[in-house]
């Protein structure tokens, strides 16, 4: 089995996909880090040299002024204001300057769409490329069962997902440490906010260190990516063409991002996997797309989808005619 996994890893690493993923991450990171630096410059320009409390208070007041014209975002904005006010009242800086804070924000924003996209680059042609190149026959003529072959491929996928998240973490650390300085690992973060009936519930709030929060974030990002990777894996078995699999998965992810913003009254949409990818929102305390969704619920839904995709993959792969 280990040899099979090695074989798969050799193929994956040989394709230089990770290099491409690394380059994509670096380019995007550079863009975001630059935007962030410009943003804080603009604040300085407007307010002068001020401490973070002043900045935060100004931000809160600016949002309060936006409330009347916020329309459907009003509730979300109100929750955000309440949360920041809570930070202010308890004298905790929500974005301590330094690399970890940038990584925190960046991970929060990329976990739902960007990281899954990167994982797709690896996962989507894991099986279908073998078929289109014809190498699958060589693979299956070996004296091992088909399910062992598929399992080795899946393990290689899990390892690749881990590598992608690691690359993401490492590169975002390097670039942001360069731009914002390597400090703030032990800065406190408030977590445990909950949204109940459109109101912010701060009764379960607790303080954690930023490094701990980051590790937990990466854990969740890893899980999200794994789910998307598994589904792409299934598509690469079901579909002959990698492009078709990629297109299908992309459509799902993007529709998830859109649906999350508009399904609040369509209750049963919460069983769709793509509406549940926003796991980070539970950590940061943003309202979920559908009232009543919780971290436990989303994790269960995602796990069920993942298990179903795996079962389908193995069932199809072991029975399919290969020619």
């Amino acid at each position, binding site marked *: 089995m280990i040899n099979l996994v090695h074989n798969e890893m050799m193929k994956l690493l040989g394709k230089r996909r990770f290099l491409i993923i690394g380059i994509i991450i670096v380019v995007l990171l550079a863009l975001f880090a630059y935007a962030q630096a410009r943003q804080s410059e603009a604040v300085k320009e407007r307010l002068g040299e*001020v401490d973070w409390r002043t900045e935060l208070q100004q931000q809160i007041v600016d949002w309060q002024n936006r409330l009347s014209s916020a329309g459907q975002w009003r509730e979300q904005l109100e929750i955000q204001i309440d949360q920041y006010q809570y930070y202010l009242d308890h004298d905790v800086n929500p974005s301590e300057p330094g690399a970890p804070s940038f990584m925190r924000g960046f991970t929060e924003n990329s976990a739902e769409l960007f990281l899954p996209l990167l994982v797709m680059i690896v996962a989507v042609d894991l099986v279908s490329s073998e078929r289109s190149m014809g190498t699958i026959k060589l693979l299956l003529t070996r004296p091992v069962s088909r399910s062992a072959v598929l399992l080795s491929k899946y393990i290689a996928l899990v390892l690749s997902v881990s590598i992608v998240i690691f690359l993401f973490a490492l590169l975002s650390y390097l670039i942001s440490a360069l731009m914002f300085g390597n400090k703030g690992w032990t800065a406190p973060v408030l977590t445990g906010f909950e949204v109940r009936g459109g109101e912010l519930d701060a009764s379960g709030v607790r303080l954690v260190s930023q490094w701990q929060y980051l590790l937990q974030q990466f854990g969740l990002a890893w899980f999200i990516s794994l789910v998307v990777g598994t589904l792409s894996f299934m598509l690469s078995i079901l579909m002959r063409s990698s492009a078709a699999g990629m297109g299908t998965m992309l459509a799902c992810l993007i529709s998830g991002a859109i649906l999350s913003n508009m399904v609040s009254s369509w209750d049963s949409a919460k069983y769709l996997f793509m509406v549940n990818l926003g796991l980070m929102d539970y950590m940061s305390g943003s309202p979920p797309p559908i009232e009543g969704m919780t971290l436990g619920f989303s*994790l269960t839904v995602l796990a069920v989808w993942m298990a179903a995709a795996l079962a389908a993959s193995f069932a199809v792969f072991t029975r399919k005619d290969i020619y």
Partner: protein
Amino acid sequence: MHSKKVRYMTAFAAVICLAWLVGFGWTVKDYLIGSGRGVSLAAPAEQPAPEGQAGKVVALGDSLTRGTGDDEGKGYAGYLADELKEEGFRASMVNLGIKGLTSAGLLEQLGQKEIARQVGQADIVLLTIGGNDLFLGGQTLSDLSAASLAKLEDAFAANLASILETIRSANPAATVYLLGLYDPFRELEDGAETSRAVRSWNARTMETISAYDDMVFVPTYDLFQRNTADYLFTDRFHPNGRGYRLMAGRLAALIAEEGGAP
């Protein structure tokens, strides 16, 4: 690719896979099962005001402070900051104005700890308040009787006194500039009457503020008296960029005249 290299990579990938699994498990434990630790938020210590930095201007009040109607979104506070910068004063400008704020709302806002701290750090406090008390979203316009106006004025004067009291107790040294009201409706049918109401309102405001040291009433009524429409935004209520520049110019002159406190 060398087989050995791949072996290392695979082993390494397995290790980080484990690390992420730990992170994931930790999240599940903390967020689903409960972290076991209660809220450990100590009451925050009092924050001393940072000393020895450049001056600080804090603007409080309603939509006029916010800058509603200005294309550039700066309002008089923003233009004032620009002018002060041009004249070589280094000052930070914090704008805490909230659209639609009434004197009661401002009093409530001043009760917030951080707002009080901001006021406490200020060298100069700018203030616009009363417009929403008087015009009440247009209601007053239909009832300009002396009795109802007097009632509004009394309530406002009481609130204003408390506001100035609060500012003074938060900051015994800052100079406070309170901008008076102008009459945006003077060119309308009832123009004469609304103007009279605004004048009386301003007189009452001036009377109230005169009880405090280092608090200055800055009139704006005269600025908008002629060619009113040219200085108003399309909503015929808030000033436009030109109107705000006039207000800022008046403040800048006052502040510079005092030797540039900031």
